[in-house]
């Protein structure tokens, strides 16, 4: 008599109607099933089924766009975690950061990850732009995707800048004070632009809630929409440019 082993268990699971409703095909091992795996999966179908050979070389793109997108995802996840413990009020914000550091499980770790990820993302987005320029990948038909990229660069900077204020410590307060002062030098609109930006004449509660809303919902949404367009246009313009 033989006892059922782990292989038999896997077979039973794989043949169950639940498994087959989740994965509509076996593990892809042939060209056909590999193509289907990419086409039939909502997350994977962002990719074409086949890509140019040079485009998967690390030294062609250095994965900079992909890394920027990955960091955006990391920042979304860590950011949502931090949002559970943070109230954007001038009396509570700093205390909340202290309690994230001291009493929230993995609080310090997640906050560190959010901050270093954010700095790294600013860097990778810049490097991505330089890489794209180097390969002339903004040439027709990709002109407008470059424009979207520049807007995304601006959004990245803006997301980082608005997040910089949220800890409400001296670094944050004075960095934002210095940074937003530049807007008050705008010709003709100095008073208005300062008010729109700060929600007052100086950095205060009005600024904190504005920056918070822009940081956690408005700009992430804008970036997500622009990313969809950015990726879509890469596909429609024939994938990663080159080889040059």
């Amino acid at each position, binding site marked *: 008599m033989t006892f059922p082993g782990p292989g038999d268990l896997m077979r039973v699971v794989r043949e169950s109607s639940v498994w087959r409703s989740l994965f509509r095909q076996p593990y892809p091992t042939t060209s056909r099933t590999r193509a289907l795996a990419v086409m039939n999966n909502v997350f994977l179908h962002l990719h074409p089924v086949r890509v140019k050979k040079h485009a998967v070389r690390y030294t062609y793109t250095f994965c900079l766009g992909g890394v920027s997108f990955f960091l955006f995802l990391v920042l979304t996840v860590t950011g949502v975690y931090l949002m559970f413990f943070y109230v954007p009020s001038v009396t509570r914000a700093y205390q909340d950061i202290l309690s994230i550091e001291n009493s929230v499980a993995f609080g310090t770790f997640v906050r560190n990850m959010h901050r270093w990820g954010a700095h790294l993302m600013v860097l990778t987005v810049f490097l991505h732009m330089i890489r794209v320029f180097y390969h002339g990948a903004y040439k027709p038909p990709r002109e407008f995707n470059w424009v979207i990229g520049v807007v995304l660069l601006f959004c990245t900077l803006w997301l980082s800048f608005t997040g910089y204020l949220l800890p409400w410590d001296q670094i944050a307060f004075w*960095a934002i004070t210095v940074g937003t002062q530049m807007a008050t030098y705008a010709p003709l609109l100095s008073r208005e632009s300062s008010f729109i930006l700060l929600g007052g004449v*100086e950095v205060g509660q009005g600024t904190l809630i504005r920056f918070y809303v822009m940081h956690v919902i408005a700009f992430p949404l804008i970036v997500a929409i622009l990313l969809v367009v950015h990726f879509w246009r890469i596909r429609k313009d024939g994938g990663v440019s080159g080889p040059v």
Partner: protein
Amino acid sequence: MTIEKRPNATADKNAPTQAPRVPAVERDRGPKLPGPPGVPGTERFRLLAYVKQESMVRVDKRPDETVLTWPHLLRAEFLMALLISVLLVVASVFIHAPLEEMANAGVTPHVAKAPWYFLGLQELLSYFNATVGGVLLPTLYLVGLAVIPYIDRSPYKAARDRKTAWVFFMSLMLGGLLITLIGSFFRGPGWNWVWPWDGIYFTL
């Protein structure tokens, strides 16, 4: 060696197709010389090109320039995501995000610096008046970046074929990097010049 067979233009179209075929290259005599026009079995040939062959079979097969996304691209993406994750986890375990005392509008710190990516801008502000350095130049910078594809209309893509554009762009980038570095590590209280070994006023 690729040899294209060109039927004799003057050959009778109704001639029986069973006319004896002559091999493209006769093994010992090389390409056949053109025969008199109109005579079946004496087709003319022209030599088109020498093709360097990778193997003995299927000379006309075009090299496949693509690979399957699964697994080639997905593996690259996964490995890169893994690398960045490890990097971030290690950094987050060992390096702590800065946090100072609670914000106080009444206490001005010795050095008030913007976040690092704006320090180039802050450095510019010390050269020009506020409207030019703080608003016009950064706006020009962003708009200038956005319109690059509409200004640079040369069809060349490789950097070696468009040195002017590349030098111009890299000067802007390196210029930006230079003033960012100056603003980050060479500026202290009152935005005065401070050598890094005399003190670093920089927070990430």
